[in-house]
């Protein structure tokens, strides 16, 4: 917009300044108004220079234009005043400045400058005062500064161009006169006119020289300002890089490049324009040069400086917009699997290109691989070069998008498969960092450059089960590496300061389940990691994060298990804040103690990978409050029954009482159905009119306890087992079967199979699990508690029972029942507390064996210690099969869970032998190996 137009649109306070400016000015506002565009187009500054012939010319042009303006106004009365004012102004101006037109030029130049000054002030003020427009995000002061500097840069560039054109004019006149009048060969001693010409020529050369110096100074100045501007852009770009790195780690940040692209392009455009200006100046020097020509000495310097700036700008403008990422794991970029496709994209933020020049981008993997022994080498299988796509819309920009890349490992000469064995490097596969480098041959306006940029280091895996630990490496690197290209980072990985780590961990939850970790969560994790309240200096070593773990798995593996569980089954509950999640036992009791009976909370298991459990409080009539928890549910259980449904239908069986759901209020005090109502799965209410072939099925979870058992007090819980879970199969809606009525079905117990050792599950395949224990078992005295596998009423052939074997033991048995397993449904048999072996007396073993349950029982059963038989009589209603020690048969878990291992962790979620006598009786069985205070 033209300056005068802008001035007229100023708010009243600023407009007042303009009026003041013109009140006493020798240039009336009428003239300014009538010839606004022309006045703004002239270089008054230039004309104001002493001895400038330009001033006189401009002055006379102005008078002529005023005359024309007057003539163009009609003879009518409507413009009477205007005509009068213009005429008066013309006469006044002529009178005042005829002698010294340069004073007039100076006056106009100053006026224009003042106007600009007022405009700038008004804008600056307007930006402060104006409420942020709703459509655009509020700009930071830095952004405003950049915008303003870009605008100033453009204005200054225009001024330089104007000065250049003036210089061109001067040179042309000089050149012409020189060729016309300068005839050195002849004798002109008696030609006074010639001397005059030469003198005039000398004056012309003087002014040309001055103008050249002026142009040079302007370009110097422009280069100086653009350096500052480039610094600003560089800062913004590094802020973006940081944001991108954080966003890779799951932080919710904006990584849009459009604004940066706009800025880089604007500055690039300006600098290229300046480059062309410089070249044009160089051409003028070719035509006319003289001794002490400023262009002679200054031009090369200017050119070098400008080219260097352009190179720097372009070099930094080439960025990796999208870090390498496999489409199937979008939340975990920078982990690539061989033979899986992945994509990555680079962008040149200076959106300037030559349409006739085909720009090609290339990628290389590990161009300078670290000289580490055993460092794997990879090939990019797909084409590694691509023509840069040029979109017309700014959104598209100059982009090279590699979408279907795959990697293949190079096999070392002759060593073939398994070469890693002998060639093993010091780093694990998931700690080996690789880089992809983009190169781009850029050419524009005669400037040819090879641009280069690199991705962040990534980890290459060959199996999905390495994904989790690979991601841990990516987290660690991007959290801590000071150098974004350091491929040797894991040779000495630094420890992570807790505040930083806490933030990154929270992002993991944020990105996977849309809710980060609260302060309380982090507090609990910190206590788990550091054993105390974290100080700002607390730092976690890499090995402690990703490798060592007391429970047989690392902290990260545990956390990642929870993340997987959240992602697959509990996303909505977590997002809505229904899962308290990370609560230590001590904290849990503190929270629940003061709540009414039946208040429960949901938290993650600390002892197993990916487990979630409910703890509730009961206040007995006398004595301290009691806390109960069920054996954690893992993905396996949640796959068949969602957590809200488990909570809805959960039944606690107490003998001779109607089963009841102990989970009444979600902590702090929301009624269960109110809290979980929206998450219950739809019950299929049968249509009554329709004749039903089958009854509806419904799966619920049940625990049972014996009526006379004592609830454990808080104190007891420290060492005592909490829950015993056994498993029952029962037809829908039926009362628990009484002993003896269990029909003997096909007595072919299934063979337990390891599904996942970590999850301690066993699948019983293809077997109808029926009563595994003889009916007479119930009469056994003193007998071990035995998990009963009562036969389902409806048994399709080949149906599989689901067993959940909690460890039978002396604690209050909480029997979990599965009501009516669907025919043909696959059952999973999770064994609750795998660690508890020594339960069976030899008699019991015999008994079990005698009852055909042998398949269920481990061969190692004989090793089991005898159980101190002080167990109360089995209740009449509870015929239970001792599901003792399934685990030793599970080869994979045997090592992990060998009960005789004194260092075996005793996960606190797992049912433990309750009586102190057990500990004293069994020397191999250490008390909780973790400091008891951890749990309190």
């Amino acid at each position, binding site marked *: 917009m033209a300056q005068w137009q802008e001035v007229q649109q100023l708010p009243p306070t600023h407009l007042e300044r303009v009026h003041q400016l013109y009140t006493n000015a020798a240039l009336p506002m009428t003239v300014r108004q009538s010839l606004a565009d022309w006045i703004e187009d002239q270089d008054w*500054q230039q004309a*104001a220079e002493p001895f400038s012939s330009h001033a006189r010319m401009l002055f006379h042009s102005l008078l002529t234009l005023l005359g024309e303006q007057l003539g163009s106004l009609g003879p009518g009365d409507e413009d009477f005043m205007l005509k009068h004012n213009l005429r008066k102004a013309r006469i006044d101006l002529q009178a005042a400045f005829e002698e010294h037109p340069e*004073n007039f030029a100076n*006056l106009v130049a*100053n006026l224009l400058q003042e106007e600009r000054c007022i405009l700038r002030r008004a804008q600056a003020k307007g930006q402060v005062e104006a409420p942020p427009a709703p459509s655009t995000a509020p700009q930071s002061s830095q952004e405003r500064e950049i915008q303003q500097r870009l605008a100033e840069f453009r204005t200054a560039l225009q001024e330089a161009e104007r000065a250049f054109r003036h210089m061109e004019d001067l040179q042309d006149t000089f050149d012409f006169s020189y060729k016309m009048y300068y005839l050195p060969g002849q004798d002109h001693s008696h030609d006074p006119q010639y001397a005059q010409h030469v003198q005039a020529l000398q004056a012309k050369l003087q002014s040309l020289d001055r103008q050249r*110096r002026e142009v040079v100074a302007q370009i110097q*100045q422009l280069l100086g300002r653009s350096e500052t501007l480039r610094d600003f852009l560089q800062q913004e770009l590094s802020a973006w890089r940081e944001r991108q790195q954080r966003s890779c780690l799951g932080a919710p940040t904006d990584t849009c490049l459009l604004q940066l692209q706009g800025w880089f392009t604007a500055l690039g455009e300006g600098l290229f324009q300046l480059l062309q200006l410089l070249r044009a100046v160089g051409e003028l020097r070719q035509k006319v040069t003289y001794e002490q020509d400023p262009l002679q000495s200054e031009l090369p310097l200017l050119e070098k400086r400008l080219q260097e700036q352009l190179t720097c700008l372009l070099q930094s403008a080439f960025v990796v917009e999208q870090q390498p990422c496999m489409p199937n794991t979008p939340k975990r970029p920078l982990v690539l699997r061989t033979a899986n496709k992945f994509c990555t994209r680079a962008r040149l933020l200076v959106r300037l290109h030559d349409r006739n020049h085909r720009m090609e981008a290339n990628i290389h993997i590990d161009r300078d691989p670290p000289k580490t022994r055993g460092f794997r080498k990879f090939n990019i299988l797909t084409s590694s070069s691509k023509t840069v796509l040029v979109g017309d819309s700014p959104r598209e920009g100059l982009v090279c998008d590699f979408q279907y890349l795959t990697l293949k490992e190079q096999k070392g000469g002759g060593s073939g498969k398994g070469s890693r064995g002998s060639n093993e490097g010091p780093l694990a596969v998931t700690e080996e960092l690789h880089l992809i480098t983009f190169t781009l041959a850029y050419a524009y306006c005669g400037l040819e450059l090879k641009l280069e940029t690199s991705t962040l280091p990534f980890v290459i895996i060959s199996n999905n089960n390495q994904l989790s630990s690979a991601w841990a490496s990516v987290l660690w690197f991007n959290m801590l590496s000071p150098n974004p290209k350091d491929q040797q980072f894991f040779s000495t990985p630094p420890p992570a300061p807790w505040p930083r780590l806490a933030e990154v961990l929270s992002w993991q939850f944020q990105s996977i389940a849309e809710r980060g970790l609260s302060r309380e969560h982090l507090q609990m994790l910190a206590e788990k990691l550091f054993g105390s309240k974290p100080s700002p200096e607390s730092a976690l070593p890499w090995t402690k994060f990703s490798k060592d773990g007391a429970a047989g798995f690392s902290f990260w593996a545990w956390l990642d298990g929870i993340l997987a569980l959240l992602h697959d089954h509990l996303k909505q509950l977590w997002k809505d804040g229904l899962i308290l999640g990370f609560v230590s036992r001590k904290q849990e009791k503190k929270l629940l103690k003061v709540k009414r009976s039946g208040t429960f909370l949901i938290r993650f298991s600390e002892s197993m990978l990916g487990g979630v459990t409910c703890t509730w409080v009961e206040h007995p009539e006398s004595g301290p409050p009691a806390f109960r928890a069920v054996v954690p549910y893992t993905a396996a259980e949640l796959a068949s029954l969602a957590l809200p449904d488990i909570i809805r239908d959960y039944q606690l069986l107490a003998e001779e009482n109607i089963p009841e759901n102990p989970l009444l209020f979600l902590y702090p005090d929301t009624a269960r159905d109110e809290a979980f109502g929206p998450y219950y799965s739809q019950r299929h209410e049968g249509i009554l009119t329709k004749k039903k072939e089958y009854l509806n099925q419904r799966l619920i979870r049940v625990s049972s306890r014996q009526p006379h058992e004592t609830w454990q007090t808080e104190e007891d819980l420290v060492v005592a087992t909490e829950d015993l879970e056994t498993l029952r199969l029962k037809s829908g809606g039926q009362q628990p079967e009484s002993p003896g009525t269990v029909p003997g079905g096909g007595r072919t117990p299934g063979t337990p199979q390891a599904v996942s050792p970590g999850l301690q599950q066993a699948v019983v395949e293809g077997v109808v699990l029926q009563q595994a224990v003889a009916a007479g078992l119930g009469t056994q005295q003193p007998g071990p508690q035995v998990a009963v596998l009562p036969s389902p009423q409806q048994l399709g052939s080949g149906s599989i029972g689901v067993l959940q074997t909690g460890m039978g033991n002396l604690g209050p048995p909480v029997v979990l029942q599965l009501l009516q397993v669907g025919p043909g449904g696959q059952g999973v048999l999770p064994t609750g507390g795998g660690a508890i072996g020594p339960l069976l007396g030899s008699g019991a073993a015999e008994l079990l064996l005698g009852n055909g349950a042998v398949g269920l029982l481990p061969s190692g059963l004989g090793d089991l210690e005898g159980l101190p038989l002080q167990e109360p009589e089995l209740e009449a209603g509870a015929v239970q099969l001792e599901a003792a020690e399934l685990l030793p048969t599970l080869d994979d878990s045997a090592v992990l869970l060998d009960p005789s291992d004194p260092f075996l962790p005793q996960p606190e979620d797992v049912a433990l032998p309750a009586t102190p006598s057990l500990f004293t009786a069994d020397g191999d069985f250490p008390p909780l190996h973790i400091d008891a205070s951890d749990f309190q």
Partner: protein
Amino acid sequence: MSQRGRHQESKTKLEISPSETMKAEEENYKEEDKEPKSEDWRPPSVFGAADLKNRAVGLYNIGQTCCLNSLLQVFFMNIHFTKILRRISVPVCGTQKKNNVPYQMLLLLEEMQRGKQKAVSPRELAICLLAHRVTMFVQYDAAQLFLTLWNLLKKQMKNPELVEKLSDLYTIGVQEHLACQICSSETKRNSSMLTLPVPLLDSGFYMLKTLEECLQCFFHPEELTGHNMCFCEHCGKKTPFRQCVKLVHLPQTLTIHLKRFCFGRSAYIHKISSCLPFPQDLDFNEVLTEQQCQAYDSEKAAWQYELFAVVAHSGSTSCGHYCAYIRSLTECKWYCFNDSLVEQVSWDDVKSTYGHSDLSWGQTAYLLFYMKKHPQ
């Protein structure tokens, strides 16, 4: 108030602009006539060039004079200097006038302040300097030219009081200690310097990170051993010495010279363009330790400085350009003086002279001028 005030001022200026030049010229003649009569003549204004009339004035580059121009602007913008300059006695005859550097500088200053022009030409001063065998129109080292200029000023100011004032304004007092490591005999020598030439590389040729580190390095004791051993009179032989410089006095205007040169192999000098941040506020008591100073507490209390000007160099050692960033002492705004162009800038622009390791042709600060915050 300031906006309004300045606005009024500019309005007046515009109003009177057509005729003022002539008036001013007349005044000029009168001045010249008047000046010899009274030595104590003082102009009403004691401001630096850019402080007068809300507009800074540039200096034309008349052939590789960017270095001179930058230094002149730094002199002229320093009100403490112009106070002294305005009190000089005017030489009697014409040739003396032509050859008197302080007088020519004063004339130039007057021209800059009087003028309606955006820039003036330092032609007469250049000619005057030529007469004193200062080669003009060649690439100059700003630190060297500063020294030359200052010495000429000092030499040609006849009034001893002014000479003393000029010295007070710029000279740094240090004490050099040289101690024999064998007999512990120590020699001390007081000396004064015009600039603190601080190194950018430490003794192990590592880049120093900040200006403060450079200063610390400058005042760090040096062990003279091996080839550098000195002859000790007491021991009667060459012995290892410990050499150190202690700071005694700091002037009102402190000049720091960043030695951005590095002798590479084969005596080829190249410029160090890497980043060296310098602060806007500098407290020498925080930079130097007790042992590195040799001054009274009252002296040390005044060692609080504020950045006043930066002379920046762009280009290489053989071919380059100077410009000056100067903070107006009255307005407290930064200006960039690029020969004939003067522009108001911000601290961010000054920061761009910290240097970049990836820009070998970019501008880098070369001379830093700090001003005492509380003049004594």
